[in-house]
């Protein structure tokens, strides 16, 4: 019996890599948070001083409350918008509902930093377009809206996150057995009563898990708190961690203590979420019966729902996209006017494309996004094979390990990796490689979800047929499993490459001049007050994202099964 064949080597290698990626940062974060000084400095000892400093700061409670308000507020606004749009487009005869699906997903492709900037440009009391227009129209003294407030922050975050609610709730509406509603109607209840007494209660478990996801995403969010919260002096955990590291001298221990706290909150959320959805999976929906969602005839009300939907899109899509486009073509920031129209120019784009760092940033972002998506999908395909197709002991643990980073807010991962690569004798700190490892770690959970879902669909006999035909495990994996996995592989790849291109919260703690990425460049330009340049950069980023998604779709269709 040969003990070390290619199968054993690949399986062991992939497993060790996952353990390293998911486990080491966690351990180093915990370790670092109880050290008195950064590792490597002489005289560092074990201490609980960091936690004392963090928790006995009177600001801590404001911090905690702010984070909770922010998370809960975002939940409320996103679920109202997302559920409404999902219901309208899945279950009603509202006109233009096909268009709504596309519109609802547009904010998905706009990086968080850009959507935040667009809302500052719209709602800032001094320069916000909406404020300026309303002030002029109504002759008001002061601006009616202020982005630099808790509600301003919640609004900006919600517009960025509601597509997630829309997607999850659309799926929930689609999977619901409509005969349950029909039973209520035949029992004599009205459309509205049916919605209130049957539909909503049925949706409650789905709704709750969606709220939890949004809450976690809300307290992990970095872009809005950094760009809006910091000037408004509204601190949340993520910005506090960022500031602890960005101050001089950096307080890594304090950042670690806050990061551990944030990690505990988000882990709790993820664990509850896991419990709820597991129960859902076990009892509901997957019957293999194709439900055809019953469409509700709204009568005259369908024009009202249509109008409300367009109003939402005006606010959530059209205004932000417009303000980005508009600002990218004007020489200085201002309300659209005949005078400014005449001054429209390509100068901002010229500036960006000739900016010394721009080419580096474009290249880095591109390599990182393609590289991390490819590595993650290859790695998680192997892991998914282990967890789905084998009976090896410890496979459930491996699955969980791959999933751990989902509970790690980007900024926490950044802090952890600083600790890791300042300590371990691996000389990649400050290079693009540390960013690559960070991205792989962060996006592993998305990869494993896509890969396992498709792996489950592959009949075991397809693989056994290759073995009985004389194929080795490696040949079987490459020639049979990977091609059959291709649709899921491609979907996961596209998703990861898109979110990788917008990544900011982890990169911002790990980049150096030579490893700058696009979102960092946008952040720096914004901090430097160069609004019009940021917008030009943003437009280029979105174009790049669209092209990537398009190419990946074409490629995937060619490699995967033709049908």
């Amino acid at each position, binding site marked *: 019996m040969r003990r070390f064949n290619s199968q054993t080597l690949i399986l062991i290698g992939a497993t060790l890599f996952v353990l390293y990626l998911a486990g080491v940062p966690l351990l180093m974060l915990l370790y670092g948070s109880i050290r008195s000084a950064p590792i490597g400095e002489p005289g560092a000892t074990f201490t609980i001083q960091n936690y004392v400093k963090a928790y006995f700061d009177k600001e801590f409670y404001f911090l905690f409350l702010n984070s909770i308000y922010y998370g809960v507020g975002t939940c409320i606004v996103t679920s109202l918008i997302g559920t409404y749009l999902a219901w309208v487009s899945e279950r009603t005869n509202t006109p233009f509902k096909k268009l709504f699906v596309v519109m609802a997903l547009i904010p998905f492709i706009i990086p968080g930093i850009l959507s935040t900037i667009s809302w500052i440009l719209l709602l800032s009391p001094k320069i916000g377009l909406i404020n300026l227009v309303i002030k002029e129209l109504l002759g008001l003294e002061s601006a009616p809206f202020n982005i630099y407030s808790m509600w301003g922050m919640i609004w900006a975050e919600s517009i960025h996150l509601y597509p997630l609610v829309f997607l999850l709730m659309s799926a929930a509406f689609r999977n619901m057995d409509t005969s349950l509603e029909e039973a209520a109607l035949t029992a004599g209840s009205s459309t509205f009563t049916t919605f209130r007494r049957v539909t909503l209660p049925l949706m409650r478990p789905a709704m709750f898990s969606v709220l939890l996801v949004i809450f976690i995403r809300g307290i992990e969010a970095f872009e809005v708190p950094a760009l809006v919260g910091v000037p408004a002096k509204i601190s949340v955990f993520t910005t506090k961690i960022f500031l602890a590291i960005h101050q001089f001298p950096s307080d890594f221990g304090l950042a670690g203590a806050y990061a551990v706290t944030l990690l505990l909150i988000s882990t709790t959320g993820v664990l509850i979420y896991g419990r709820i959805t597991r129960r859902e999976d076990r009892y509901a929906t997957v019957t293999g019966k194709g439900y055809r969602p019953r469409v509700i005839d709204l009568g005259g009300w369908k024009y009202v729902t249509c109008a409300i939907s367009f109003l939402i899109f005006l606010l959530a899509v059209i205004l932000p996209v417009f303000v980005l486009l508009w600002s990218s073509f004007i020489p200085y920031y201002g309300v659209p006017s005949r005078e400014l129209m005449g001054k429209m120019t390509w100068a901002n784009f010229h500036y960006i494309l000739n900016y010394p760092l721009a080419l580096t940033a474009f290249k880095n972002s591109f390599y990182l996004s393609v590289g991390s998506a490819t590595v993650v999908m290859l790695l998680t395909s192997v892991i998914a094979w282990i967890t789905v197709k084998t009976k090896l002991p410890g496979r459930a643990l491996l699955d969980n390990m791959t999933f751990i980073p989902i509970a790690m807010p980007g900024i926490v991962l950044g802090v952890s990796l600083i600790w890791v690569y300042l300590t371990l004798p691996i000389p990649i700190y400050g290079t693009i490689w540390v960013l690559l490892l960070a991205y792989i770690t962060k996006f592993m959970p998305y990869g494993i979800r896509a890969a396992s879902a498709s792996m489950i669909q592959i009949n075991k006999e397809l693989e*056994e*047929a290759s073995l009985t*035909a*004389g194929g080795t495990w490696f*040949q079987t994996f490459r020639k049979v499993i990977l091609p*059959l996995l291709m649709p899921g592989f491609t979907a996961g790849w596209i998703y990861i490459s898109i979110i990788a291109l917008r990544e900011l919260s982890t990169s911002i703690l790990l980049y150096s001049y030579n490893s700058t990425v696009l979102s960092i460049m946008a952040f720096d330009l914004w901090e430097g007050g160069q609004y019009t340049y940021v917008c030009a950069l943003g437009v280029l980023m979105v174009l790049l994202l669209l092209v990537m998604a398009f190419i990946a779709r074409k490629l995937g269709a060619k490699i995967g099964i033709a049908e």
Partner: protein
Amino acid sequence: MAEKRDMVQIDSLEKYFGEDKERVHVLKGVSLNIPEGSLYTFLGPSGCGKTTTLRCVAGLERPDGGRISIGGHTVFAFGERVYVPTNKRPIGMVFQSYAIWPHMTVSENVAYPLTIQRRSKDEIRRRVGDVLKVVGLDGLEDRPAPKLSGGQQQRVAFARALINEPKVMLLDEPLSNLDARLRVQMRSEIKSLQRRTSITTIFVTHDQAEALAISDQIAVMHGGKLIEVGAPHQLYARPTRRFTATFLGLTNLIEGKVVELDGDSKPGKIQTKKGLLTFIPAPGLKKDQAAVISIRPENIPLHKEKPQGLENVLEGTIKEAIFMGDAYQCKVAVGDDLLAVHTHPFNAVSPGEKVYLYLDPGSCNGLPADDTEGIDETMLGD
């Protein structure tokens, strides 16, 4: 004819599924020898261990005891920690689902075993052409696999298993996904293909008619154990185990006690509730032992007048007579029992008629009554 050597030898195979408390003993010491060039069938109800045994031969399952050799080479031996992985065994396998890879064309599927050996393009093209001709699929080389019918997919699966000239072909219920008409057609095709290539073939099925029609030898299995091995005719006409008698086709069982014996396979006498009957005892049956007689419905000629000068004649009343075209299937009440009797359509019968049944002594198989392996699960005669 020269003595054929055994191509596959299976010795005391043990296998468990599951862990700890949910551990199930699925193979309980199965031993089999499969002669070279034969079409050998594993037959049994679902859960009997037939597929597991096959998968152990393929190396897709690793047994928990015993040994397996193929063509004289040990591929698995528990004590000596020998385990040859599936891809190194000289086998070809056809799966229940056919397992045709949907991302490849017909010829890519069939060529796979050669492609991974990096054979030359010319050789591959030639051999794929040859084997597709054998299974009757020539001309479909470039058809994408998902565009094939069920029967065609199965031929592709056969071609793929054959192309590497395996020593043993393993067929895991290959006909169960086909419709009834195609199943009968493919059944004879498999048989003639096996005759032509004379590759040792193991065929797994739960369908006794299929097993009888196709096999050189049948191994009847139940509950993880081997019950009986024999040629189809032998197993059907002269079963030595009660499970074989009841699982293969329909039979009537009459209980009694052996009163007279004249040695193996010679007629003896048994005392039953229906009187003294002449029968052929199974090997090992002893005098005074409790026994059952198994007799097939088609071996009971039905007379309207009492036949003269014959023994083993019982008197009964027709309770049910179903006309099947080629036969009447009757239920005849004899005393408290109902016997199943199939009679030629010349012999029109109707319920209520009084008839005489001749239990052909040569077809009355006496089996030990205490051989209850697998009996409680199989409904008898009803």
